[in-house]
């Protein structure tokens, strides 16, 4: 049972602190130049940290008690000044999906 909601990949983390700066719950600390989520059960799931991470080291899960099935979501912004966000979702069956959203495009509904 995977009961995380935010997972930080320590090998990928470059210690830039951007995630810690934006977290609305002040839940990410930096120790030994690596980001760490202090109490994951306090996470709201706003995905702000995912959007800040320049190296895609943070991913988001649905907790088991929310009916999560083990998919992981992360976000990449290829270009710093770009308005596009590239979302990656990888599933336990090894399939994955990429979705590009762009803040220049409004919601149609």
């Amino acid at each position, binding site marked *: 049972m995977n*009961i995380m*909601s935010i997972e930080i990949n320590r090998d990928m983390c470059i210690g830039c602190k951007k995630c810690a*700066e*934006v*977290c*609305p*719950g*002040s839940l990410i600390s930096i120790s030994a130049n690596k980001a760490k989520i*202090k109490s994951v*059960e*306090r*996470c*709201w*799931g*706003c*995905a*702000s940290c995912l959007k800040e991470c320049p190296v895609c080291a943070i991913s*988001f*899960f*649905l*907790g*088991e*008690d*929310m*009916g*999560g*099935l*083990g*998919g992981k*979501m992360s976000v990449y912004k290829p270009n710093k000044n770009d*308005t596009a*966000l590239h*979302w990656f*979702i990888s*599933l336990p069956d090894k399939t994955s*999906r990429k*979705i590009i*959203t*762009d*803040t*220049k*495009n*409004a*919601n*149609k*509904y």
Partner: protein
Amino acid sequence: MKLDIKKITTDFLVIGGGTAGCWAAIKFCEKSDKNVLIVEKANIKRSGCLAAGVNALNAYIGEGKTPQDYVDYARRDASGIVRGDLLLTMSERLRKVTAELEKLGLTILKNEDGKYVERGWRNVKINGENIKPLLADAVNQNEQITVLNRVNVFKYIVQDNRIIGAYGISIEKPILYLIFAKAVLISTGGAAGLYKPNHAGFSRHKMWYPPFNTGAGLSMGINAGAEMTTFEMRFIALRCKDTIAPTGTLAQGVGAKQVNSLGEVYEDKYGLTTSERVYGTVCENVNKRGPCYLKTKGISKQADEDLIKAYLNMAPSQTLRWIESKKPPSEENVEIEGTEPYIVGGHTASGYHVSTSRETTIKGLFAAGDVAGGCPQKYVTGALAEAEIAVESADKYMNENILFDDLGQVKKIKHELERFFIKGESAFTTDDLEEHMQEIMDKYAGGISANYKYNQKSLELAKKGIGEIKEKCKTLKVKNMQELVYVLELKERLVICDVLISHLLARKETRWHCFAEHGDYPDKKDEYRCYINSRLYGGKIKIFKRFLIEEGEVYEHHEYRN
């Protein structure tokens, strides 16, 4: 641990740098060359209820409609208990603030003629994923504005019912801030975490409203003797099951109807006000016709794709749910459920009792956004409109004569905080008490497990239980500043719970299903066509009724003026 005292002086203090707070700071600088200080518990880039984004502006005046139409709609939805003066002055600015948001860089959907595409007549469709970063950029570029991130304000400095500043503590370092200002705006948002949430365990913070909005501003106001209004009009959101993602995009955007497990459309049966939509869902479940859904089955594949993107811009967990379950909305209806109740003035009418100029009953303290009462259905644009009105009033106010020499008070507050750092373990943790508080509210004050219902007896039990937890708070111990903030947040919630219960007890009728469902008085009564207001007086919550205020009136707090 010993706290260092740091003194700061500013002209205009904004407590809470969410959507309303940031907008207020920007607008104040357009009016005045004085300095502004925003004090924010998190970081203004992604703080407040719009951290994840928002994909519609739900308060707008569409073509051919007038601000009065919006007032009429909000009044109907709240069964009459609204402030006409506040709603009208807000509605008059909705088009203007929408255009200004667009100028700031917000993407709004337009048709070929360059006009906004309306969703109904009150909404426009946007891409608001970056609404908070846009506001934060505008704030950070303004030289008149200073931002103090990661500082938690917990108490006002009030002399003779006039505010002159506030106390705050750093979340990271042992610093007690004393902030003095000529005028203050409170924009800390509403209160989440009062009731046991949809997910009580690991995912307990996966809730509709930010779990970090603990009602600090409401609690500080109550403790300083400010008058509060309509707390009993709780807000309960109808959400996608599990992810607690918004349903408006499906209901209004795609036109998905509410259906029960038999596939019957039930929404027409119970009415279409915000509270009736929740009530219908509760009734269908109680009558064994649940679970309930939004009927999305059969929508086009293109709609699937658009929805998957739309939810990424405000509630990414719902997109993840659709993709990992491999059941997009076109193939499976979206199950819905009610959330736990919140106190949130952007949706219902609970919050500070303010004058038409948005001044609270404490002189020099103005309120905007989810802390401000009387003006429901304000959403994002309404909060901005209200922030504008509040800063125009604050600019006119500016108290130049601040004299503070109560060093005894500072010493006392410092000592009260430092006392929590004593060594050893306490019998229970802050989390234990928070959970217990939520259980009590859930069971006895109309939470999810009680189908939002309560009665006189159960409320009295709730009141007693909350009182006991308040006592237990005194024995809590902390190891660092963050833990101290958690203790202060718990105390804030307990103050709000106490006032909320008093309001629920006072409205002896059921004016709004679910929002305030009194088991002993299941019907509406004419004698309650009034506001239920409250004020802490000599340590006791004093409840009183006030006459309804209509649009066109200019309301001032006469009895508080010397």
